[in-house]
């Protein structure tokens, strides 16, 4: 796995009257899990979509090892992204879905079976997606993101719909991925869920970065929850 940092500088996006993201700047380092934490509607999903070029920013830049997503030689082989808008055609089987995206991304067909094993989708591989639970869809989205054996994972609330065993598995998975040298940027509105797994934290509120730093610095401030509420209160007063 090659070391690919995520560098976000001055990203901004406005939807009509709503300033969804305002001057968001942070770095997610290779070999680390970076938590991107904020309440619903704080601007997490919009930022992540701008990162991978699905939404065009009004200002600012987002780069993977110095290259914007669109200009990467092998985009889905460099970055695997699971966004909140990841869907699947209900009449396709999991295998059909994965084959389609392996072909589109230019990845070896053999990767389909590998990611199915990796994400524990074997029992559902040949079933139509119509009958999938939210958790199974989430696993399928992760399997799709892993098709290109990427160096970077961008995950938007990936534990939504996962059962406790699934959440445990996901934590272990991203920890191993980062320990192997990969870059993980993972968003969540559930603070406790990420505290045990992240190396760094970026707190976002109303489209602005409130605080960012390492897990050690966070511990000095009394942990994620204390920090979050402290900052959120300051935000309310400001």
């Amino acid at each position: 796995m090659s070391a690919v940092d995520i560098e976000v500088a001055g990203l901004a996006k406005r939807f009509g009257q709503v300033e969804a993201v305002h001057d968001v700047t942070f770095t997610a380092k290779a070999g680390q899990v970076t938590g991107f934490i904020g309440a619903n509607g704080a601007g997490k999903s919009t930022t992540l979509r701008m990162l991978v070029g699905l939404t065009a920013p009004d200002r600012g830049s987002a780069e993977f090892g110095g290259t914007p997503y669109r200009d990467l030689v092998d985009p889905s082989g460099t970055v695997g992204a699971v966004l909140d808008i990841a869907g699947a055609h209900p009449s396709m089987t999991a295998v059909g879905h994965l084959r389609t995206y392996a072909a589109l991304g230019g990845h070896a067909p053999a990767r389909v079976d590998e990611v199915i094993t990796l994400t524990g989708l074997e029992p559902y591989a040949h079933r139509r997606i119509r009958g999938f639970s939210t958790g199974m869809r989430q696993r399928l989205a992760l399997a799709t993101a892993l098709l290109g054996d990427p160096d970077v994972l961008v995950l938007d609330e990936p534990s939504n719909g996962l059962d406790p065993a699934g959440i445990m598995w996901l934590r272990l998975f991203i920890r191993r991925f980062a320990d192997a040298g990969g870059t993980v940027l993972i968003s969540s509105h559930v603070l406790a869920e990420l505290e045990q797994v992240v190396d760094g934290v970026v707190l976002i509120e109303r489209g602005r970065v409130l605080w960012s730093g390492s897990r050690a610095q966070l511990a000095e401030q009394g942990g994620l929850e204390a920090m979050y509420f402290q900052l959120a209160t300051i935000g309310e007063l400001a």
Partner: protein
Amino acid sequence: MSRLIRGELTRLASTRLPLWTVLLAVASGGTMTALLGFIDPDQSNPPMPGLDTAEGVGVVLGINAMLLFVPALIGTIAVTSEYRHRTIGTTFLAAPHRGAVLSAKLLVYGLLGVVYGVLTSGAAGLAVSGAAAARGILLGTGPAELAMLLAGLAVAAAVYMVIGVAIGALAGNQLIAVGIVLGYFYFLEPLLMIVPGVNAVHPFLPGGATSALMGSTFLADALASELSGLAAPTISAGLGAGLLLAYAVVAAVAAVAVPLRRDLR
């Protein structure tokens, strides 16, 4: 580009759309043509020319021009299902150059349109020959002339599928796109065909161009003279074919250019 085409072909093969395409092509081309082929022309109102005349064959095969909303809808539904089922984001992640993605889709569905066209005109050809044989009538067109009419139908079907894909790509929303396709076929174009004065443009619209290509302007003429007392203007089959292809090109260019900057939310 070849990887995107392979991807779209894989997607197509992973759904039931190819099966539906074959079934609909054969059913729409065969049944309506056969039905009309068996009607005794003297019993119809307005009276139709019989199958023993070239005009009569044109009218019977011309019913297929009214069924071209089927390939258009197949194209529209195929491309908008990416928005409806929220897979378009994943597609653009695998291939961030959106213009290339849309081009690959247009190419693949153009190809599916040709398959649809060949099947539907094959079924229509069999149906009209079968109806004539069953009624003991000699078809009013020779084999070469009949083949030309059927080739026109096949081209029109492929063009309509491409236009359908383009409308789907432009609208994004599946319901709106289907509404546009059906609204155009069942409301706007028939309306433009009968309004005096305005019907001068009808031959240059996709439906009118299709009629010209298939030599089935009889219905338009009959309707126009019945309602306005004026003969509807007509264009040559060659111009009709050229116009149809031009519509496909314009639709394809718009479909590739417009969604490029669209934010996915």
